[in-house]
């Protein structure tokens, strides 16, 4: 039987929304307060959903120890308490939460093999959240 398991994690990071290809005025118009050159930060909530058959021997889609270990090492350690703009991942893209979602999904898809990665959901604040499922439809 196929089930979907979601685990929520937290990390804090700063970013600045700015695109060098735009003029200063355009950046200001598009990004507003988020264009402040010194950056600003968020407590991000990250939800990772994995899916697969429930193993009849363990009752699990995947062992949480494996998921937690991977997310801590590859995502929370990488992005937590960092200025996202300084990271290699965001040298060609603006570190919006949309792009952060896509990046995190890619890291999981590439490196986590204990279950199928279904989707990633990131809350930037309590009032806005972003979801990415590799371009596929999101199931509710």
């Amino acid at each position, binding site marked *: *039987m*196929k*089930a*979907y*398991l*979601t*685990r*929520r*994690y937290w990390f804090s990071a700063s970013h600045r929304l700015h695109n060098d290809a735009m003029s200063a005025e355009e950046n200001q118009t598009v990004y507003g307060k988020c264009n402040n050159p010194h950056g600003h930060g968020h407590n991000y909530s990250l939800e990772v*959903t994995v899916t697969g058959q*429930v193993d009849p*021997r*363990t*009752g*699990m*889609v995947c*062992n*949480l*120890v494996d998921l937690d270990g991977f997310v801590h090492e590859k995502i929370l350690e990488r992005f937590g308490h960092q200025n996202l703009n300084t990271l290699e991942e965001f040298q060609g893209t603006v570190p919006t939460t949309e792009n952060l979602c896509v990046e995190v999904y890619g890291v999981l898809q590439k490196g986590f093999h204990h279950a199928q990665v279904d989707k990633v959901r990131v809350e930037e604040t309590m009032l806005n959240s972003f979801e990415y499922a590799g371009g596929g439809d999101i*199931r*509710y």
Partner: protein
Amino acid sequence: MVYLTRKAEFSASHYYHNPEFTPEENQRIFGKCNNPHGHGHNYTLEVTVKGKVDQRSGFVVDLKELKEIMNREVIDAMDHRFLNKEVADFKDRIPTTENLAISIWLRLKSKLNLAELHRVRVYETPDLFVDYYGEA
């Protein structure tokens, strides 16, 4: 089609153990959850049903009836229970959150004639939940 979700809460204890595994395997795979005396959670259950809005009542489903079915089939059976020992579903199945979601789906599916069951979501903690949609 409109989707309606009803929430309920229950508290229960469980532990993870497979008698086919050696004690070392059980410890390695299940870790702290293997403590034979059990440990507990405050579970939150979300049941989502879907259907067309009835023209006369304006309802997808009579919430009172849905609440009664959830209470009878799930809450009365599982609240303040040791799942491994007191709920028959887990006599031969480990009461992980995955299996709990599947078990609750099966309990509700056979009793819900009011609307179509769409999803059962079980939160073990605010940071961990499982969704089951009835898929094989």
